[in-house]
């Protein structure tokens, strides 16, 4: 078990880190070759755009889709914070490295986990129900949604000791690793590309075309 934890943690975080770094380096080089990308980038207008798109309901399209927007915000918030602030993870980290950081109480984490699960269910239903989304949804999209939710499902089951703890923990660790590994290699990479695509568009609209992009 301990071995599995060590291997998976290294593997997951390692692949994530190396994968992301590799992608960014590649993009940097490709952007240099493309020539016209980097000169357009503007800190001011890039940030202006990021701020608007990171604040809920501050863009017209977010206002046109208030439910999706709010679900998505809660989803991302919980999705990013829960794994970082759950006692179980920080404990493991402390055991290995000898230091840790404050955690959130378990019930809070449970709620956050549930939020993620409900949100994924919402996304799933939306993909099935809304024609313009179903039209661009394939097995990959469903699979990725499953991968995204899996560590949360297994995590909460483990925490609540609903099923065989050891088995669920193994599933949790495996799915968690998959979660991390897939980020650089699927559209989950939007996690880091977001900052670049958005600030590029913000720069092009703001610095070059004198217009707003939200």
């Amino acid at each position, binding site marked *: 078990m301990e071995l599995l934890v060590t291997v998976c943690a290294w593997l997951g975080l390692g692949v994530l880190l190396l994968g992301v770094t590799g992608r960014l380096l590649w*993009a940097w080089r*490709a*952007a240099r*070759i*493309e*020539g*016209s*990308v980097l*000169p357009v980038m503007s800190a001011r207008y890039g940030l202006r*755009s990021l701020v608007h*798109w990171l604040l809920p309901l501050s*863009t*017209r*399209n977010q206002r*046109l*889709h208030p439910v*999706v927007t709010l679900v998505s915000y809660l989803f991302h918030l919980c999705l990013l914070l829960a794994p970082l602030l759950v006692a179980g993870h920080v404990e493991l980290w402390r055991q290995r490295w000898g230091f840790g950081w404050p955690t959130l109480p378990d019930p809070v984490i449970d709620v956050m986990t549930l939020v993620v699960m409900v949100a994924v269910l919402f996304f799933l239903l939306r993909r099935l129900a*809304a*024609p*313009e*989304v*179903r*039209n*661009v*949804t394939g097995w990959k*999209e469903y699979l990725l949604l499953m991968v995204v939710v899996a560590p949360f499902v297994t995590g909460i089951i483990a925490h609540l000791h609903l099923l065989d703890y050891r088995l669920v923990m193994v599933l949790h660790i495996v799915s968690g690793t998959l979660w991390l590994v897939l980020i650089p290699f699927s*559209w989950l*990479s*939007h996690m880091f*590309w*977001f900052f*670049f*695509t*958005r600030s*590029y*568009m*913000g720069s092009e*609209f703001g610095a*070059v*075309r*004198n*217009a*707003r*992009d*939200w």
Partner: protein
Amino acid sequence: MADIEDARVEDAGIDQAVDKLEPARIEAVIRRVLGAGCGARLKVYLQTCVHCGLCADACHTYLSRDRDPDFAPVAKVKETIWEMVKRQGRVSPEFIKKCARIAYTECGACRRCSMYCPFGIDIAYLIMLVRRICALLGVVPVYLQDTVNSHAATSNQMWVQPDDWIDTLIWQEEDAADELEGVRIPLDREGADIMYSVIAPEPKILAQLIANMAVIMKVAGVDWTMPSLDGWDNSNMAMYSGDFEVMGRVERLHWERALQLKVKRVVMGECGHAYRGAVYDGPKWLGWSKPPIPMVHAVEFYYELLREGRIKIARKIKEPVTVQDPCNIVRGRGLHHKLRYIINELCEDFRDVSPRFEHNYCCAAGGGVINCGPPWKLSRLKSNRVKAEQLAATDAHLVVTPCHNCHSGIEDIIGYYGLGMHVTFINELLVKCMDRGDGSGEVER
């Protein structure tokens, strides 16, 4: 579902070329285009898209066609470039035919969707890559290609002969001088402050606009000139067909002419795509990060003249007026406030549209779509019901359209949807409303 009627449209430029396509050639072209020089943006966009469909609401074609999912921006990408990438270029001639229909006639590269996608994915850029591939394969709607051929041969959009150009200017000068004494259109006046450039439809079918401009220049006391030789046309359909070599040649000649004439700035007539070509796409392909000397769109120019009091308004238009925000000068240049300033100066009863400014709906004619000609007209009209509804809601009689594509596109929509409105360029209103300093400009409307 794609519209059956659209899929059945016959277009010799597409159909005949598709019949001759070899899969090996298709593969080679796709690999070449997607491989070289567009690595960063293309690949990042493809990886980033989470297939969320949130861009759908941006697109007038989607909104106008009862939210048909095939008209969502992401669907247009899915049906074209995703497939090309996934199959590494091994796609059929029939597939290319579909790509041409989607890329040339169902997307106007208006870039509205890149401000609806949370990631700012530039769908129009991806669609332009599809057009580039189609162009290299020779699969281009016949009327659009003919326009590009005109650009290639004559450097203007409508096969205007060199003498017809000069003759038209002379004739417009004479007409304008009948209206206001002393009006001139100075040809090749080296060292003038401003070179004025227009698009070929002006001398060809809307020559009055040039005379109007001459009157405006005279009243405002501008030191200006127009070139007598090729390079006078600032329009560029090659930019939209995907023939960037011709696009670059046309834009270069336009700028070289301005540099030869030693002018400080170029002012251009009321056209949106021409602004994009002369300021962004053309210079970019040629290596310029911005035009070599400033380009001033007519809207900016009129704004300047009114603001500085070089033109004074003698009387205002009384009937209700609304506006079409042209994509390429609104999303493309942020001129919407200046545009409204001008309209409010000229009109008593201005009724704004909603959504507006950068969120305007495209006219569905720009981006080369209207240049695909009669075969695709019905499709184009079906693709812009939202615009008709938006305009109808204003109850205005007159639609100000400071762009040639918008002008024609909106005129068609007004006819098709029976809106009973008229379109007008600012130029036409300005000559009616301004104080010419000779007591005229008092035409009742």
